């Protein structure tokens, strides 16, 4: 067979491509405006005006004009950049030209197609400084769409012009030498812009730069909106000052020292502490928390909702947060703050309680990348860590306010008590006055006394209700905590049940099938023995399970050694054997604690399951539990020789939802629960230097003896 000559063929764009990269990619008008204003920012503009003419109702003269005083374009720019889809110029040059040297906001080189969303026809006029020529370019999107329509009716594939075949007209006008910049004149406007729409545009454009730009900016960026509406006649877009917040927190970093500030709640106060750099890179976080009262003030004053935390990169907002959403409740929870609420429980903050901004930079956080569809960020480690970072700070803030509430509650309770006392004194006084008063006054006083009695009754009831309520919510919380560890237990329990049931079931079945049979006597004996043994195992499992359902307040005398040995040798025996873990218990036989059994079991339950996870990849696996007693307290050391706890994590391992073992099903509840339980006993838990070398973890629990 003769070898045929090779030829080549090119890809081409159908005319409909203008839709795909324009109105179908950028789905709403406000994002479109946003993109165009961002282009002005990238062109070093210091002033941008967005002018709306005749936009309600629409007329043949309706126009949207976006005018900037940026560096403008010459013909080669138009030809090689503006007219090239996906131009790489902004990806190559990550800084705008000197002297501004802004980090460019656009990257994908398609923002200008957003024009198509606003109107069908665009006349672009642009001029470089010191040039007398004003370069004009006309693009008629309606021509593309007409072409597309007519092509649909044609059957001759070969004769169809492609997207890239359509000619766009350009010409030169005379320009003023002193002027520079680019003007986009969009006509044949698609949709009516109501005052509400303009107001939305205003609000969204105000998000473009952070509320307080990082430094005194030598090259400001001003946006002005002009429209027929009175309130937006000629108004400068300003970032809303954030006011009325209940609490403001600012976190920063020190690059030289290599440290990042984070929040830490400890014993009633909220502090900033310095930790080593996180995998997400250095960042600044400003967080405002609004309580109910502050929220309504904010809303009333700014006429907008508190809308969560946004991420700014190099002083400009990142694209996922630049998407406009009409209904704030439908706004995507990119950071996953609200998600915690559904999975979480008490005292949680949501995006409606928090306002804030994270400031990152290309230099410090190169791995945080906005995904091309603008809906989120590329899911990588850095992004995951950034999310974790933010959530962690929120958690600390939550703990702080949880405590504030607690203190308030106690105050309420005691002021109720005081009121009750006052009432008693008052009654006494009235009683003493009554004796000496005239019959008329006495009658009056009697009725006052009766009323006082009623008030006193309701105060007493309030106090009672209050305590009851408090107790109930505490119970609820305890129940929730138990449920989480119950989940882990349930997995083990069902595994055990399955084996045991299988044994019992088949044993009974064997009997049923074969009994009586003198030849099988030995077997019947061994089977009945095993049924008995398996039943005992099952009973133990059920007992343990039942304890979870039991009320949480009973105190009993507990032999600590027995309790731990029971956990190791009975409850966890299968898991430990399976993993090849050796256990060492060095606790005095007579160490008795008078506490709630479940609480203590919970503590060790969680510590053991933690250790099992940490030992996963060890060859030699040891878990050790030892105790030391002094006259007023007992110290328990719980150690393993597993992977250990990284220095940078030591301060946060007790935080709720902090987990290093998500892959093994860790939910970040375990150590939090341990800490809560220990603290409920007036005890303390901390991570100390590991007992085993070279790696491992040692927890030190101190419990006071009750006097």
């Amino acid at each position, binding site marked *: 067979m003769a070898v045929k000559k090779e030829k080549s063929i090119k890809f081409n764009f159908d005319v409909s491509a203008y839709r795909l990269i324009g109105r179908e990619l950028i789905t709403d008008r406000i994002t479109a405006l946003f993109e165009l204003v961002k282009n002005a920012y990238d062109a070093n503009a210091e002033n941008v005006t967005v002018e709306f003419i005749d936009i309600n109702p629409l007329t043949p003269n309706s126009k949207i004009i976006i005018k900037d005083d940026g560096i403008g374009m010459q013909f080669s720019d138009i030809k090689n950049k503006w007219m090239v889809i996906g131009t790489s110029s902004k990806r190559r040059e990550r800084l705008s030209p000197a002297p501004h040297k802004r980090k460019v906001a656009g990257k994908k080189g398609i923002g200008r197609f957003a024009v198509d969303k606003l109107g069908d026809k665009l006349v672009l006029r642009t001029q470089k400084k010191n040039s007398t020529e004003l370069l004009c370019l006309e693009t008629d999107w309606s021509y593309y769409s007409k072409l597309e329509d007519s092509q649909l009716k044609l059957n001759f594939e070969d004769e169809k012009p492609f997207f890239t075949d359509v000619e766009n007209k350009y010409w030169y006008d005379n320009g003023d030498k002193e002027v520079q910049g680019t003007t986009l004149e969009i006509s044949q406007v698609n949709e009516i812009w109501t005052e509400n729409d303009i107001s939305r545009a205003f609000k969204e454009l105000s998000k473009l730069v952070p509320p307080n730009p990082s430094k005194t900016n030598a090259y400001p960026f001003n946006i002005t909106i002009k429209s027929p509406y009175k309130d937006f006649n000629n108004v400068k877009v300003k970032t809303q000052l954030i006011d009325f917040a209940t609490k403001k927190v600012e976190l920063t970093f020190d690059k030289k020292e290599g440290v990042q500030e984070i929040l830490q709640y400890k014993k009633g106060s909220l502090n900033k502490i310095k930790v080593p750099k996180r995998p997400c890179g250095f960042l600044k976080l400003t967080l405002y928390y609004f309580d109910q009262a502050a929220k309504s003030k904010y809303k009333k004053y700014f006429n907008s909702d508190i809308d969560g935390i946004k991420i700014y990169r190099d002083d400009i907002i990142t694209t996922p947060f630049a998407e406009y959403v009409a209904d704030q409740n439908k706004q995507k929870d990119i950071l996953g703050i609200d998600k915690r609420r559904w999975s979480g429980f008490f005292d949680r903050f949501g995006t409606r309680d928090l306002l804030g901004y994270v400031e990152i930079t290309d230099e410090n956080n190169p791995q945080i990348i906005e995904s091309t569809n603008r809906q989120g960020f590329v899911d990588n480690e850095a992004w995951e860590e950034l999310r974790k970072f933010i959530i962690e700070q929120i958690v600390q803030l939550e703990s702080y306010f949880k405590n504030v509430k607690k203190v308030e509650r106690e105050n309420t309770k005691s002021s109720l008590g005081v009121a009750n006392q006052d009432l008693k004194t008052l009654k006494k006084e009235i009683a003493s006055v009554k004796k000496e008063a005239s019959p008329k006054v006495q009658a009056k006083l009697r009725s006052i006394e009766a009323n006082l009695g009623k008030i006193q009754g309701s105060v007493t009831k309030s106090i009672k209700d209050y305590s009851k309520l408090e107790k109930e919510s505490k119970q609820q919380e305890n129940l929730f905590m138990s449920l989480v560890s119950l989940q882990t237990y349930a997995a083990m329990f069902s*595994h055990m049940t*399955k*084996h045991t*049931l*299988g*044994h019992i*079931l*088949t*044993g009974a*079945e*064997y009997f049923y*099938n*074969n009994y009586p049979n003198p030849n*099988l006597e030995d*077997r019947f004996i*061994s*089977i009945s023995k*095993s049924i008995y043994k398996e039943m005992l195992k099952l009973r133990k499992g059920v007992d343990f399970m039942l304890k979870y359902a039991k009320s949480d307040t009973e105190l009993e005398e507990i032999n600590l050694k027995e309790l731990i040995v029971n956990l190791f040798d009975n409850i966890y025996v299968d898991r430990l*054997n*399976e*993993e*090849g873990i050796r256990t060492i218990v060095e606790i005095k036989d007579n160490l008795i604690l008078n506490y709630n059994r479940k609480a203590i079991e919970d503590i060790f339950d969680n510590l053991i399951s933690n250790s099992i996870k940490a030992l996963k990849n060890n060859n030699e696996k040891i878990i050790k539990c030892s105790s030391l007693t002094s006259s007023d307290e007992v110290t328990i050391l719980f150690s393993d020789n597993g992977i250990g706890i990284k220095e940078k994590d030591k301060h946060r391992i007790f935080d709720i939802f902090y987990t290093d073992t998500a892959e093994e099903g860790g939910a970040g509840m375990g150590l939090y629960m341990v800490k809560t339980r220990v603290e409920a006993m007036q005890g303390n838990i901390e991570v100390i230097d590991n007992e085993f070398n070279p790696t491992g973890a040692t927890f030190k629990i101190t419990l006071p003896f009750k006097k």
Partner: protein
Amino acid sequence: MEVTFVIIDDNKEIEEHPLLFTLEDKFKNVKFYSNPQDGLDYIKNNLDINLIVLLDIEFSKDDKLDGHDLLKEIHNSSSLIPVILWSGINQTNEEFSDFINNRAFGFLSKDCSLEEAMLIVDKAFNNLKNSLDNTIEDWIINNESDKDKPIYFTSSGESYTLNEILKEIRLQTPIGKEFSSKLNSLTIDLLLRKKENL
């Protein structure tokens, strides 16, 4: 047909499991190994007899081999042995793909009843009974005189008697595999050319 059951499970209590008793009652030969390596060695040394294996999946971490490895090893030694997985854990699909690749015969849950278990066991038994090697064995039992007749000649000039071929098949040697495959082709050819009827 004689068959030997090999049960491998690191839990020693399984030795007294009613399923093992039932198998012993019905099939007589039951071997229990709590050490996976011992079990595997037994299988490898007894490829010339009929075996059915019941295999646990999760072994303690001290054992170098788990059920997955064992299955692979057994399958590599001989594809004729039905291996039934007998486990207390619910396997995810992904792990099951390994079982499909290594041709596990079936899966028994540790909590299934004897009746349910015996359904799969009997299926494995019948499967074994209808296999080529057992057909040859039955032939030899019924026609003792054919035992030493050479029936297969290789291109290198060696000849194999019916009894020798049986062993080669059971040991899954290249000669045994070659013979099985050629025999199947021959049968199909004969049927197609209407030289034989079944």
